[in-house]
């Protein structure tokens, strides 16, 4: 139960971060990606702000034998660079550049009730499902 409450609270903080930084706004993302246009460095500042917190603190957390509320850490198990990683990242990048939405901002933007956002998120879910079928075929 406590872990459910934590997940909810963390989701709120995450969305507030996306909103305050305006990363929820696709125009900001496109502005950052448009290096040949009038470049908007905001996304870089967001990454710097986030990494300034996670880079020093993650190693301290991971030094513990287990997290505070759960029995163990659930971390990614893959360590080797492989073709799916590179191909997947390239496909994701193409979609990100097309709309200016990545998964976090798109989900948070659902709060606007915009039909365009709903369409994007629905397509994103179908895309995830297709990749899952592709992996388990």
């Amino acid at each position, binding site marked *: 139960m406590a872990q459910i409450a934590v997940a909810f609270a963390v989701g709120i903080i995450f969305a507030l971060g996306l909103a*305050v930084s305006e990363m929820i706004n696709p125009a900001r993302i*496109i502005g950052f990606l448009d290096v040949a246009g009038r470049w908007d460095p*905001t996304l870089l500042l967001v990454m710097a702000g*986030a990494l300034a917190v996670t880079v020093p603190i993650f190693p301290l957390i991971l030094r513990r034998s287990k997290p505070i509320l759960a029995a163990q850490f659930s971390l*990614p198990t893959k360590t080797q660079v492989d073709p799916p990683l590179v191909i997947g990242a390239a496909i994701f990048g193409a979609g990100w550049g097309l709309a200016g939405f990545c998964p976090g901002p798109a989900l948070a933007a659902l709060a606007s009730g915009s039909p365009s*956002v709903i*369409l994007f998120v629905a397509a994103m879910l179908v895309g995830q499902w297709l990749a899952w079928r592709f992996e388990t075929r």
Partner: protein
Amino acid sequence: MIEPNTLGGLIGGALIGLAAVLLLALNGRIAGISGILGGLITSTGRGDRFWRCAFIFGLLAGAGLYALTSGLPLELQARGPTLLVAGLLVGFGTRLGSGCTSGHGVCGLARRSPRSLLATMVFMVAAALTVFLTHHIF
């Protein structure tokens, strides 16, 4: 175009970092949005689905809260068919590539994961290239 949001960017980024730190320290989970969402499709346990849903409801609640006070900054240039294709690519690519901006970019880099560093560079370059092609060539 819009002016850079310097202060908002740094503060918002720190909030995202704080969220990632809390989720890892308390629940032992990586705050990668595509992974949290994707787990809903593949997950088997009810408890596992619960926390994923709670996180996504939290995202909606946080954005809703902000919308009530300041209004959501949301300027979407892409239209129907483009959004559809973009959504499919983002969903497929993040699943195949094991993560998105938050999982690889914010958490993976903090774990000093070589996979995440490479993925972050690849999706940044691919996205910039896509914007260059769609805004300056075609």
